[in-house]
C-alpha cells in the first residue's frame, strides 16, 4: 500500500490517481495521519502543498521515524521537506514558476534515469533548495536546463526520492514512467 500524506494541497489527488495506477493508495491530510496506515504502507509520499517545510513539523517527525525503513517519495513541497530534514536550506527564488512547463535534464550517471535525458515537466514552486547541499547518500539527479535549479534527488541506498516538479501534472510528459521507475527500483 502507498500512503499519501496531503498538505492541504489542490494537486494531491492527481498524485493519488497517478500512484493508484501501480498499487493501492490511501490518502490523509498531514494533521489526520494514521500511525496504523503508515505501518501498513510500503511507500510513503509527501504531497505538494503551500508554504515552507518548517510549517509542517508533523511531517518532519514521520520522515525521521521511517527514513530507511520504508520507501519515501517527496513531490514539490515534499521534495523540499525531505531536503530540509537532511539539513538543506529552502529559500525563495528570484524567478517563480507556477503552472510553467520547463525542461529538466538528468545530470549524473548515478541516477535511475539515463544521464543526459531531458524531460518536459510542470512546475509549481516559489521556493528552491539552496546549494551547495550535501548529505550522505543523497544525489541531485536532475536540474532545470536553464536555471540549473535542483529538480530531483535520489537516495538509492535508503530508497528516498524527490521531485521538485510535478510528475502528476498534465504539463509533465511521461510522468507515469518516472513514477513506475522509482516504484520498481
Amino acid at each position, binding site marked *: 500500500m502507498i500512503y499519501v500524506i496531503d498538505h492541504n*494541497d489542490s494537486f494531491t489527488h492527481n498524485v493519488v490517481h497517478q500512484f493508484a495506477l501501480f498499487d493501492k493508495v490511501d490518502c490523509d491530510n498531514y494533521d489526520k495521519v494514521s500511525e496504523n496506515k503508515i505501518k501498513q504502507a510500503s511507500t510513503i509520499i509527501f504531497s505538494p502543498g*503551500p508554504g515552507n517545510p518548517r510549517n509542517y513539523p508533523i511531517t518532519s517527525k514521520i520522515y525521521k521515524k521511517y527514513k530507511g525503513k520504508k520507501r519515501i517519495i517527496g513531490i514539490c513541497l515534499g521534495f523540499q521537506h525531505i531536503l530540509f530534514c537532511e539539513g538543506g536550506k529552502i529559500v525563495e527564488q528570484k524567478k517563480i514558476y507556477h*503552472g510553467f512547463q520547463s525542461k529538466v535534464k538528468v545530470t549524473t550517471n548515478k541516477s535511475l534515469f539515463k544521464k543526459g535525458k531531458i524531460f518536459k515537466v510542470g512546475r509549481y514552486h*516559489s521556493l528552491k533548495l539552496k546549494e551547495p547541499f550535501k548529505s550522505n547518500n543523497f544525489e541531485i539527479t536532475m536540474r532545470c536546463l536553464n536555471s540549473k535549479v535542483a529538480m530531483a534527488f535520489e537516495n538509492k541506498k535508503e530508497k528516498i526520492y524527490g521531485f521538485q516538479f510535478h510528475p502528476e501534472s*498534465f*504539463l509533465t510528459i511521461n510522468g507515469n514512467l518516472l513514477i513506475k521507475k522509482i516504484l520498481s527500483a
Partner: protein
Amino acid sequence: MNRTNQLTKIHLSGKPYIIYKSQNGFDLYTDFSKKIILNNKNIKSFLTKKNKKQSTNTDLFIGFFGYELLNNLIDVKVPKQKNFNFPKGIFYKPEKKIKLSNKLNYDSKNFECGNFKININRKNYTKIFNRFKKKIKSGETYQIKICTKYKTKSKINPLDFFSRLSDTNLAPEAFMIKDNNYSIISCSPETLIIKKGGDISTKPIAGTVKKTKQLNKIKALNYFRKNLKETKEHNMIVDMERNDLSRICKVGSVKLSKQKIVEEYKDLFHYVSLITGKLKKNINNFEIIKSMMPGGSVIGCPKINTLNLLNNQEKENRNIYTGSFGYIKFNGDMRFNIIIRSILNFKNISEISVASGVVVDSNANHEFNENFLKAKALIDLFK
C-alpha cells in the same frame, strides 16, 4: 398565447420565478411548492435526502449556494464580516416549467438608482495586491483573486435588467431569480458541474480577451498561447480541477477532453478547458459538491490556504459571489455554474462583485482596471 406574453403574465402576477439558460433558449421555473433556506446544519440532509420521483420535468430543486456556506462545507471559517443578512443559500421546488426562446422581449425600462461606489479604492487595492504578492513569493498561495464590490441604492425591475442583459450578452450560464424580497441577475459564462448518471465534467475559464474588429477567433488563440501569464494561470486551474474531480472519480478516468480552446461570445473570447471523469461508485451529491465547490478558477490555488488568506483580508461578506447556482434533479443529475458577473438586489441595494487574479507576474494597476471593466458591463445596465 405566445411564450413571451406568458413570461410577462407570470412577471406581473408577482409570484417568484427563476429563469435559467438552456441549450436553445431559456427555461422558466415557477409555482414553487417548497422553499428551503440553507444553513450549515441542514445542507447535508438537503443534499443526501432522496426525493420521490414523479417523473415530470419539475422533479428537481433549483437555487443557489452562497460563498460562506460553501466555505463552511469544507471546514474553512469566514470571520465576522460586514453583511446585510442575505440568506446563505436557497433552493426551490418548482411545479411548473416553461420553455422560452433566447429573445425575452420584455420592453419596460424603468428603474431608480444612485451612483455606484466601490468598496476598495485603487490605493487600498494596491496594498492588498502587494501583500498577496509576497504570499506568492513565500509559496503560501500560487494564485489568488482579489474581490472588489460596487454598490448603489436602487429600485429595479429584474426582468427588465435580465432581458436587456441577455440581448447584449447571451451567456451559457445566465440566470435570474425573482423572489419577493430579493432578485439576482446574472450573465455567468462558467459551468462548474455537469453530472449525468456516472459522468461528470467541469469547464473552467481562465483567460478573457475583448473582441475587436482585428481580433478573430484564431488570433485570440494565438494571443492566449503567446501570453505566458494567461497560460500559466490557465494551467494551474486545469491541474486544480483535475484534482477536485480525482477526489470523486475512478482512477484513470479523469481526462482533459478539451485542452485550452477558445470560445467566442458576443463581446469577448474565453480561454477554456473541459475536464471529464467517471464517478466512483457510491459517491453522493454531498461529496461531489464538497469536492468541487467553491469553484477553484474564481478563488485561486491551492484552494484551502487561498480561501483562508482571502477570508482574513475581506471586510465584507461575498454573499452570492463565487457561490454556485443550478439544479439537482431527483434522479441525482446536476448542473451548476459559478456565480460571477451578477447583480444581487436586496433591501433596495444593488451589489456587483468582481475579481481578478494575482499571480507572480501580474500588475496591480492592470488588475484593478480589469476588475472595473468586468463590473462596467453590468453597471451600464443602470443607464
